[in-house]
């Protein structure tokens, strides 16, 4: 483990920063994923309804 990493770990703000970044980006990805695939599934359903009633 490098010295810079050790000094970061002594600082809880560095850990909090990484956690906060992960929550913001990962949360956005999960929301985007859910919305995107919801509309894709709805689109396929509409196509199937048009094709087969």
């Amino acid at each position: 483990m490098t010295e810079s990493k050790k000094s970061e770990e002594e600082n809880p703000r560095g850990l909090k920063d990484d956690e906060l970044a992960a929550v913001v980006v990962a949360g956005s990805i999960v929301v985007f994923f859910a919305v995107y695939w919801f509309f894709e599934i709805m689109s396929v359903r509409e196509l199937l309804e048009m094709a087969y009633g």
Partner: protein
Amino acid sequence: MNSATTRQSPIGPYPRAAIATGLLVLLLAFSFSGMRAEVWTALLPFFEWMETTWFGYVGKTWGGAFATIQAGHLVSLGVLGGAVLFSDGRLLGLYSSLPLRDVIDGSHQVFKWALAVVVFTGVFMVCGVAVKVYYLPVFWYKMLTLTVGILFAFYVRKPLVDRDLSGVSPLVIKLTAIASIMVWFTVAATGRWIGFS
């Protein structure tokens, strides 16, 4: 006190979170503004040029070469997906008998090489069908998710999992692992979708 612990970033106490949030806001602003259409229009000559490159000629005229490179692309994408599932599965608590640090570090090495092959073979394939994919919305979704996936993997996930995970919130670790699986699943799915468009 160590000078590193007292150093303050010019963008606030949480620079990584601030930069990540700023990038997300910029991405949203770009997606919902007229700038997106302007950039898209400006990129057409670049895509037309790609088809005139050596890669473009080979991809268009020699089907065997395209198929071979595509096989490499798919295999490396499979390896990348395996590395993601292995590492994130371990973060989610699966196969807990395996040492966490070894799984994460080993998977990241495989992930890096697989990503390099995915990108290189992907560029070759795009050159062969550049103008076709230029008009496919799903191609741009793939580029978006690929960019987000790479930034997420190296700028957000890697610094977090490099830490002693006993000090990190389990909820954050699990959210990160789920988001990682989702983003690479979307990269793979939109990639295959291009082939059926």
